[in-house]
């Protein structure tokens, strides 16, 4: 099972950007379920804990949600190495900007910083094969963005990515409502990941949920390690 088909990019014809980006988008979405939810008093991210290596389960306790700072976090799908590298880069850039100007990046600025790097990757024929949800809370309130391989970002109320996203979306479309509280949002997100884990072979091994509110971050682990 091909996880990465980026090598195709350098050999293809003029229409590479359409065909192969779709190709990559497809491969990116393999093997993960991550969910993001914007609530009235904060944001929620949830993920499964499975990492796949081809047809095999590579790890049963992998992290897919990472804090950028005290009030921003990302959830990742796709190539783990690309995502980790990107996150380190964005954390470093964000910290430098924060130290220089004396106040933190907004969630949108962080998402844009991330997607600009992804865009330049795509434009230089070496894309970061990952899709990333950026969630957080700032002066403008709770925010949720989705950044993809091409460097596009979209502003979302709720979203999911990874191979389990079709199942997760099924539940989210039915259960998400405007004005939902973080406490309820967390259970909706966890249920969406659980639904995906039931039917998607690329997702499993427990759920991790991150709640971000004005009070700070709260991590919740459900199941995990071999279940």
């Amino acid at each position, binding site marked *: 099972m091909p996880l990465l088909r980026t090598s195709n990019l350098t050999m293809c014809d003029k229409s590479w950007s359409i065909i192969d980006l779709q190709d990559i988008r497809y491969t990116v979405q393999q093997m993960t379920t991550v969910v993001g939810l914007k609530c009235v008093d904060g944001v929620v991210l949830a993920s499964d804990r499975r990492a796949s290596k081809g047809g095999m389960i590579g790890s049963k306790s992998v992290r897919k949600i990472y804090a950028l700072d005290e009030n921003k976090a990302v959830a990742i799908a796709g190539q783990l190495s690309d995502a980790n590298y990107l996150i380190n880069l964005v*954390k470093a850039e964000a910290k*430098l900007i924060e130290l220089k100007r004396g106040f933190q990046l907004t969630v949108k600025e962080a998402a844009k910083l991330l997607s600009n790097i992804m865009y330049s990757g795509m434009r230089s024929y070496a894309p970061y094969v990952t899709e990333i949800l950026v969630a957080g809370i700032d002066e403008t309130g709770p925010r949720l963005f989705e950044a993809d391989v091409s460097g596009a970002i979209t502003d979302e109320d709720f979203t999911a990515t990874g191979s389990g996203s079709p199942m997760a979306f099924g539940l989210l479309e039915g259960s998400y409502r405007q004005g939902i509280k973080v406490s309820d949002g967390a259970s909706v997100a966890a249920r969406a990941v659980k639904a995906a884990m039931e039917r998607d072979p690329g997702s499993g091994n427990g759920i991790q949920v991150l709640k971000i509110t004005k009070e700070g971050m709260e991590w919740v682990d459900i199941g995990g390690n071999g279940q």
Partner: protein
Amino acid sequence: MMPKEFGYDRPFTLYTPDGRLIQVEYAAEAVRHGSPVVGIRGKDFSLMVARMKDTDPLIDPVEKIHIVDENIGIAGAGYTGDIDLLIDEARLEAQRHRVIFEDPIDVRSIVNHITQFMYQFTRYSGVRPLGAALIVVGSDRTGSHLYQVDPMGLMISGKAMAIGMNCENATGILREEYRDDLNMEEAIKLAVKALSKADESGAPVEVGIATESRFMKTNLENALKRAKEIQDKIKKDKKENS
């Protein structure tokens, strides 16, 4: 032979016949016109104090102590532009380390990087040695550290030191009154006393404290208040671990 009017203090960094680099010495002289900074290293902490630049009631006071990363702070004396360049470089190096290792940088490595950076300015023609000296205060898993960096790219580690205008006055006090068993509150008071000998301006004092792999910057009143808290916490942790 060089033309007569071409002295040893031209824009090149050029040795004099007795082996001195006059341009670098001029840079050190520029530092001695900068407002002073005093640093003290205690048993399980290190700290620095400086007065904010507060020259005109119409101008907002300028901060002197800069946060480099969560565990390191730097204050400089000399040309502000040169200090800012060094702060930028230090911050960049700290983040480079994080991108590679996902952990905060240790104090010695960052000081070493800064000295190498400064040293390059003493070797090439067309550049001028940076007119800045730094006090670096930080804490990592090897303990708390106090360093001084000067324009020739020299790295000095020590228990108590001062840079900038009239620093010898401050150093005099430090030499007389420094003890190895100073607690944090006593150290802050001694540092401020030494600073006041060098800088009599009465502008607000900033304090930077590094302990337990954290660096914090605050004003004098808060620092004295927090000193007790932090000291008590260190004592308590030690009791629990012994």
